[in-house]
């Protein structure tokens, strides 16, 4: 049968569990294909999230965007800290108190991890920009290094922070 949808299979590269492709024989006219309602029904919609099998590389890609957004908002904390310092002792100590509270420290912990994770993820992107690091095992390794590296560096930064305190 012409225009039969067929299951191509797994595409681990982007975490796809299944891909449906509509194969058209060369002799089929486009208009004919469009007119074929069965074919229209079989046409896949743009894939939605549910059909993806989460893959490490995909999760890391989403993390890069999420940490970018978090850092975007986080620049407000940096601006507030600098402005408070520029305003004088009273406001600076107030902000320091907020940042030093349990909640404040948790937010700063998240900010520092997001920054380090996003930086390492950015380095990964810069490696890709040179055309390197696209192999199956390379991608897996880069993803793992990004996550483990960001966690290790965050711990180191906080150990250093508690030591200089």
């Amino acid at each position, binding site marked *: 049968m012409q225009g039969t949808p067929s299951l191509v299979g797994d595409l681990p590269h982007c975490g796809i569990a299944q891909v449906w492709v509509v194969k058209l024989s060369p002799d089929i006219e486009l208009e004919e294909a469009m007119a074929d309602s069965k074919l229209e029904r079989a046409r896949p919609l743009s894939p939605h999230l549910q059909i993806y099998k989460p893959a490490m590389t995909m999760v890391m890609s989403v993390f890069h965007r999420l940490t970018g957004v978090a850092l975007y908002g986080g620049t407000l904390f940096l601006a507030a800290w*600098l402005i408070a310092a520029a305003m004088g002792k009273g406001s600076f100590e107030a902000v320091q108190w907020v940042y030093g509270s349990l909640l404040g420290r948790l937010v700063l912990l998240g900010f520092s991890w997001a920054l380090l994770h996003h930086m390492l993820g950015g380095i990964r992107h810069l490696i890709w920009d040179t055309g390197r690091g696209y192999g199956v095992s390379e991608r897996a390794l880069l993803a793992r290094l990004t996550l483990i590296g960001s966690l290790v560096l965050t711990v180191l930064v906080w150990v250093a922070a508690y030591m200089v305190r």
Partner: protein
Amino acid sequence: MQRSMETPLKRVRGLGSAHAGTDHFWKQRATALAGIPLTIAFLVIVLSTVGKDFATVKATLAHPLVAILMLLFVLSSVIHMRIGMQVIIEDYVHEEGPKVLLLMLNTFFAIAVGLASAFAILKLAFGA
């Protein structure tokens, strides 16, 4: 024979349909690259202020080298994050009105945060 619909002038300018060519792409990469040493410098500076009193922190931030590194970090970051957020807005917001509005707010936010931070750093460095 001319094989594309572009006029030769358009082709020679190489800016394509977006009229800005790969400008954002390169700025995003340049600020990402600059961001690596600047982020490390930023973290070291902030670490050196942990637990210090106001006078010490102020003196640290007022040091010319520290102030310059902080200014560079803030400048690079806000350019970078403005382009980055623009990509995200364009990915998810397709209606023309809300999109233009969000793109504008994105620009305002980046400029406001950048300017406020830079002003504070300069005031600490020069200020009374």
